[in-house]
């Protein structure tokens, strides 16, 4: 499916989750926190109390990493009443940071995200936090850190093929286009 503005010949990549390889070690979440902390380290992130933007939740015995799918026509983008949540037309990344408009912490995106992948900043700060795709990094910190290969950074086109084989997650499929899925 085309995204308006998507450039021909530019590879768009996304994080793919292989549930059967996830043991719930939380390394991804810690690495994410580190990547978004001032110090850049896990201990620093803990000291600064920076939360991870990839969550690992237990569904019965199965740990499930929960992270933003960077959907096209993302509900959070439509919900954002200040225009802070935008999708980059080239990379496809959806983020509420780095734009002219600053996040106002109205929580509309939290209400809109069918994956529960957006959280409130800690300590009452009026700011919504979500995966920003680790802009500026070749590979997102969570993918780099995962010791079991449960997270992979793959091109979306490959991904679509993969998804057909291992379709997993369907809560929001008819709401968004091209929402990146989970595989098992």
């Amino acid at each position, binding site marked *: 499916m085309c995204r308006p503005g998507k450039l021909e010949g530019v590879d768009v990549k996304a994080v793919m989750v292989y549930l059967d390889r996830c043991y719930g070690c939380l390394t991804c979440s810690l690495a994410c926190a580190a990547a978004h902390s001032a110090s850049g380290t896990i201990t620093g992130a803990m000291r600064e109390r920076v939360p991870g933007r990839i969550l690992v939740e237990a569904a019965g015995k199965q740990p499930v990493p929960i992270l933003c799918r960077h959907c096209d026509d993302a509900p959070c983008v439509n919900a954002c*009443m200040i*225009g802070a949540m935008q999708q980059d037309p080239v990379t496809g990344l959806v983020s509420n940071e780095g734009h002219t408009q600053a996040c106002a912490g*109205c929580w509309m995106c939290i209400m809109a995200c069918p994956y529960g992948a957006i*959280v409130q900043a800690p300590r009452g700060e009026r700011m919504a936090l979500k995966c920003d795709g680790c802009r500026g990094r070749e590979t997102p910190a969570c993918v780099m850190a995962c010791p079991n290969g449960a997270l992979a950074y793959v091109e979306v086109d490959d991904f679509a093929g993969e998804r057909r084989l291992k379709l997993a997650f369907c809560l929001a499929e008819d709401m968004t286009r091209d929402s990146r899925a989970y595989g*098992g």
Partner: protein
Amino acid sequence: MGKKRYVIIGNGAAAIRAAETLRALDESGCITMVSREQGPAYSRCMLPAFLAGEKNEDDLRIRAGDFYEKHGIKTLFGSRAVDVDAGRRCVVLEGGSRVDYDSLLIATGSSTAFPAIKGLEGPGLFGLRDLSDARKILDVAGRGRRAVILGAGLVGLEAAVALARRGMEVTVVEKMPHLLPRQLDPAAAEILRRDLDGVGLRMIMGTGVQEAAAPESSGAGAVWDLLLDNGEHLRAEMVIAATGIRPNVDPVLGTGMRINRGITVDGRMRTSIPEIYAAGDVAETRDVITGVRMLTPTWLHASLQGMIAAWNMAGRPRLYPEPVGIQNVVQLHRVPVLALGVSNPQDASCEVIAIHRPAENLYRKLVLKDGALVGAILAGDIRMAGILAALMRRKADVSGFKDLILSGDFHCGYLARTG
């Protein structure tokens, strides 16, 4: 065929989303936006923050400064559309000039519906919809010390908190017995009321205004006198009406278009007249939960509808994904509160389950019908709201895990399947 001419009446949430989507789908089409207001698109939702002095006018903009130029959009701002000639396919502006269209979007939003109260007319009476309203309110706020807000709905409470933050003495008068009567129930409203104790508002619930006496003049010292149903008199330099809205259907009244409360649209945002679409506060859509046509006067619905309208206008058929019609979230002070769908069911066949821990400002209420979620109220902890809305929309049978949802430990991982 030459370049397609798209005309959008409006420059708000729905209009902007439509314009940028049109440009993405049709590189060469001519896009014209007509708005009665001057200046670039801004967020009405942020007007309370502007009133409170936390944001300036530039901060309210929803797109970068070069938006119109970058997207090649012709703007006719400061011009009001007064009529649409559907036969000749043109929009008539105040002053008589005409703008031809091949495809037209009505995204005119809504206006304050002032309550019919005897004597409620005169200087110092405002609604809060437009930047111009907010500027006028600030002007009087500079001279006066007291404000009365009519209505404890979302706009009323946001205005009240904003003016209190400026140091005004604010009284909220609400006919219904609790705050946010359309969204909350008494338990959630009580948590919100206690949260607002930290702001310092006076709230008079369960009482209406019987009669109003406007100030004689508009200058300094002009004071309103409101007589309440309970006999009390309230005196204030300004009165803000926040008791309801009215969709701005005026420009299409002469077209014979099907209008109920708002303009009725189909799943592709088409009105009853060919090549005319409507989106946002002015449009009426079908609610996925109740099946009833309703206004959905919120930002989320307006932008989604604008986007869907644009796809169809550009000749790329696409259906409105029918999100839950009522979706509100607000954090006025410390505690976020959120309401989805049918949060106060009248239907006795609905099952209601709730967790209520007022000491922790926590409330979670789920409304189920035939095993599916149809409504919810969350106070204090709003983490999984989006998943609830998605489950509601899909009419998923949640009877097997409703207690897990109620506990607050539910997350989308439970819905992931492998294989």
